């Protein structure tokens, strides 16, 4: 059994010994990061801050979804937590920030949908290349629950699952929105006028899209059990539970926007996450106690064994909820900002 200080599960004891080609691969990643930052700094201001924001977004995502895949053989120096590696984090961050900034610079006069298409195409292609490399080098492998979703369907020659064509753009879209949103707030420090009347139904639709995409992606990690059969949309995703998360997030944002209109956008974002977390934590605890929410074996193996006092929530879930909300809310707020932007 795991504890906070001792971990005996496969999540902690795995082969970290790298091969020569993996060491070379890691060297290339670090070199690519340095060269990219140097190149980007010539065409964009404050690149390092933006890179750190992307890296943070990637790290949050990797931390949250660590049970779904494994990153082995990177060397003991490369790991931050369980099999989450900082080397892969900065690699993915570079794959996102380089095309993103290049597109912003060279397509500045294009319409937003053209730029979005360019982002997603370029980042998806680079992401597929990256995933192919880590899989074929023996770094990346998939948890049994993820393999059951993949169902043995791999792209010939690339050895990556067909579902990566879906997972990578969704993952990149969430991280890209996180980066764009926090760059606007913290680096570019844009000034957004207060909005008298929020388009609450449009915002609800955006919330639905964000939450549903994310739920589809993390579906292998959890089991939503004991729901009425008619409520299941895809595998064990129930619109009752997913709809509940959508409502909580949307209501948190709507109420904060109404009652805290005089706060800065950064402070309001923190309030969205805070209120969403305060409401979600006891609900998640209740779902776990009453066996509506079960975590897959790979997920449980990642737990430290420590629970939040007075609840039955693993401490990892207590951290995962605000992280999940930050990613989702950043996606929602970024697209609300884009739709509200008047040219």
């Amino acid at each position, binding site marked *: 059994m795991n504890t906070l200080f001792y971990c005996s599960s496969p999540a902690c004891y795995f082969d970290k010994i790298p091969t020569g080609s993996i060491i070379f691969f890691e060297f290339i990643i670090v070199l690519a990061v340095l060269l990219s930052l140097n190149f980007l700094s010539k065409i964009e201001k404050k690149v390092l801050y933006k890179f750190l924001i992307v890296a943070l977004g990637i790290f949050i995502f990797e931390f949250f979804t660590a049970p779904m895949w494994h990153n082995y053989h990177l060397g003991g120096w490369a790991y931050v937590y369980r099999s989450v590696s900082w080397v892969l984090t900065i690699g993915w961050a570079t794959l996102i920030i380089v095309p993103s900034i290049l597109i912003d610079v060279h397509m500045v006069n294009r319409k937003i949908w053209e730029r979005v298409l360019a982002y997603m195409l370029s980042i998806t292609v680079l992401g597929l290349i990256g995933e192919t490399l880590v899989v074929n080098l023996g770094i990346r492998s998939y948890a049994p629950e993820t393999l059951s979703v993949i169902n043995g369907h791999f792209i010939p020659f690339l050895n990556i699952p067909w579902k990566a064509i879906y997972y990578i753009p969704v993952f990149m879209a969430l991280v890209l929105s996180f980066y764009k949103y926090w760059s606007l707030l913290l680096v570019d420090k844009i000034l957004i006028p*207060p*909005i008298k009347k929020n388009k609450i139904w449009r915002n609800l639709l955006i919330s639905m899209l964000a939450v549903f995409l994310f739920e589809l992606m993390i579906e292998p990690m959890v089991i939503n059990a004991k729901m009425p059969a008619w409520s299941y949309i895809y595998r064990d995703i129930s619109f009752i539970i997913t709809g509940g998360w959508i409502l909580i997030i949307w209501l948190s944002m709507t109420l904060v926007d109404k009652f805290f209109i005089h*706060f800065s956008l950064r402070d309001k974002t923190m*309030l969205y996450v*805070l209120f969403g977390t305060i409401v979600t934590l006891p609900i998640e605890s209740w779902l776990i106690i009453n066996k509506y929410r079960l975590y897959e074996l790979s997920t449980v193996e990642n737990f430290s064994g420590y629970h939040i*006092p007075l609840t039955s929530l693993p401490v990892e879930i207590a*951290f995962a909820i605000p992280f999940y909300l930050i990613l989702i809310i950043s996606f929602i707020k970024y697209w609300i900002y884009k739709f509200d932007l008047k040219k």
Partner: protein
Amino acid sequence: MEKTKNIRRGKRILIGFAFMIFISLVFGAFPFLLASIVCTGGISLIVYIPLALMLGTAIDKLIFNRNNKIEEQISANTDKNNVGSDNQILLTKDQIALVNYIREAQSRGMDTNSIFLALKDNGWMEDDIRKAFGYSQTHTKI
């Protein structure tokens, strides 16, 4: 102004942390709090610091009653017999939001017309905007 803001923010973070430590001691969760910071190499502070800031801000506003309302004592300078009397005008949250935006926009060099149009495009009535411009001149932030 910026320095004062940062000092206030720092104090609120400290208040928030003190509250969190107090609650964790009451519920016997202090070892968990400490371990979650130490064992994550401080990464968990990404969550704890904003949480402490939010808690500290809430406590600061609720208990010490320091808030973002713009208050101004307007001396009755037109009435010489009213020496010592003063009026306080408290603005609504909407008005505070407008005034803060106007001030920030002006400090960034935006002209009045652009500010006016930006607010109008976001659903504000012209009358509210004009009043907010007036308040931005007469009120000081606390």
